[in-house]
């Protein structure tokens, strides 16, 4: 008896040892970025590699700010991510409310279309999108990033599933008896109930927009007016000539807002995403 308890404890320790190893592997690149961002380029080039932080972080930050408009591009990224998130939350939840709780001619067809749209890959539309936006003069401005992303099939589908379960018909009927019209039902009855679903969609949308790279790269043609990700990649493109400590500092600082948002919404993101995957 005693030996099996000892054996299972030993197995438990081995288990955690492997899991901690995985944790270290997940975290190491972040640590590495911190190390590099605190050294000068010449120190980085030395062997053996530096594994502990150095004293040059502020110097790297200064070089970074000299080389790119860090706060300007960060502001652009924030503008795009926040606008898109607000618009997506509004348009998607409104459409989802309709699909979840109302009957009308063509509902099945329209929803089927929505699901089909889900599957179309982005690059199929990339060239004509670029051409259309060039024609209407949006290329080079944030509008080119915000408007096409303002509503999406994934969000509508997600919110519809959520609303079907969370909003009870009796609640809607009662509000109708009280004389609430469609918009009041949406705003005062539906939205308060589905706040957790909105939180997931909002955080998810914000992070996707913050990280988006391919479309901003081609749509923002003016190098002085780019999002943070594009600014960073431009910095990296010159790494043959400029210093690596600075590039690393940029990469690291660009992660900070994202990590904050993730830390706030981690439970929602991880839990809901996994649930959705198992259900689907």
């Amino acid at each position: 008896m005693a030996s099996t308890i000892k054996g299972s404890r030993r197995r438990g320790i081995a288990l955690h040892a492997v899991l901690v190893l995985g944790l270290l592997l997940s975290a190491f690149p972040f640590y590495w970025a911190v190390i590099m961002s605190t050294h000068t380029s010449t120190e980085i080039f030395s062997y053996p590699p530096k594994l502990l932080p150095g004293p040059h972080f502020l110097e790297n930050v200064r070089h970074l700010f000299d080389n790119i408009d860090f706060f300007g591009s960060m502001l652009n990224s924030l503008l795009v991510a926040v606008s898109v998130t607000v618009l997506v939350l509004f348009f998607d939840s409104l459409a989802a409310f309709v699909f979840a709780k109302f009957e009308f001619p063509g509902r099945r067809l329209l929803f089927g279309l929505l699901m089909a749209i889900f599957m179309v890959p982005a690059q199929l539309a990339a060239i004509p999108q670029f051409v259309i936006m060039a024609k209407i003069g949006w290329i080079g401005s944030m509008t080119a990033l915000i408007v096409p992303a303002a509503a999406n099939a994934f969000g509508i589908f997600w919110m519809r599933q959520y609303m079907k379960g969370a909003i009870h018909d009796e609640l809607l009927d009662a509000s109708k008896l009280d004389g609430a019209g469609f918009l009041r039902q949406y705003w005062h009855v539906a939205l308060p109930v589905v706040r957790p679903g909105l939180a997931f969609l909002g955080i998810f949308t914000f992070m996707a927009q913050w990280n988006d790279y391919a479309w901003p790269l081609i749509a923002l043609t003016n190098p002085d007016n780019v999002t943070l990700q594009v600014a960073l990649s431009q910095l990296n493109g010159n790494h043959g000539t400029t210093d690596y400590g600075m590039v690393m500092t940029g990469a690291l600082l660009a992660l900070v807002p994202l990590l904050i948002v993730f830390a706030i919404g981690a439970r929602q993101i991880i839990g809901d995403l996994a649930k959705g995957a198992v259900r689907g």
Partner: protein
Amino acid sequence: MATLPAVEKPPAALADTPAAKPRTGFRKHWHLYAAISPFYLLFLAFGLIPVGFSLYLSFHRWDGLGSMEWAGLAQYQYLLTDSDFWQSIGNTIVIWALATFPMIFIAMVAAVMLNSAVRFKNVYRFAYFLPNVTSIVAVAIIFGSVFSTNFGLMNALLQAVGLDQVAWLNTPWGIKVAIATLMTWQWTGYNAIIFLAGLQTIPSDLYEAARIDGAGPVQTFFRVTLPLMRPVLLFVLVVSTVTGLQSFAEPQVLLQTTANESTFSGGPDHAGRTMVLYFFQQTFDNNDFGYGAAVAWGIFLVVVLFSIINWRLVRRRGEA
């Protein structure tokens, strides 16, 4: 809605004909259509019309400025014989395979372990998921330094154990391994969390029954866990196929070297030029919009084909 004036109502005889019904339905429900219209309008303008236009474009020659010239099937004929395109398909599939199989294996092992270790489960879940939410550009910059030939951590590691250095980002295989490592790092934890969610839906009495029947842990895994995990495995495979075959930012940021070279070239010998990278190069570097459109449809076909193959593979393995 109920306040529509009586005049608006169609005569009784008309109301029974199928043609009149949708009209009344539409009038009665106009606010519902209005509420869902933003998505459909946006999709029309930035989805449907562009996709239709790209099909049209793929039958033309166009540099994006001058007039379009009808080319018929010429772009697609060229696509079939374009060795650069085939190379990009090969690159993409090799990188995808190098990343996906270790990723699924490690994720499955991690999920099974997480499912049995009760303490600190949320800490592990948080840490394992972190790589997936971080920006690909920042990650590619960091991995670029890890795999750097001159001062990279990988080479320092190799040197420390007495092995020869590898010019990771200068050799065809090194490039692919570096990109695949990055993708594995970014997606393994994500898949582990998904697998874990699947594992938690398996009733524990099934495991008890297996234990009573004398099944060992390995046998239990293959006879009980794996068959029940098929839908989740399918989800993970489809997601990894769709994202993996469309990889763009990873090679683009990792392999862009100097500003005067094309940033879509995919490194020495184009060994890291994936399908989507090739699409960008043809379209926005060469201003060959017609051919770019044909490449995009080619990519779409490859992704669909691969998804179907994966789906059938997972299904058949389960049935056997």
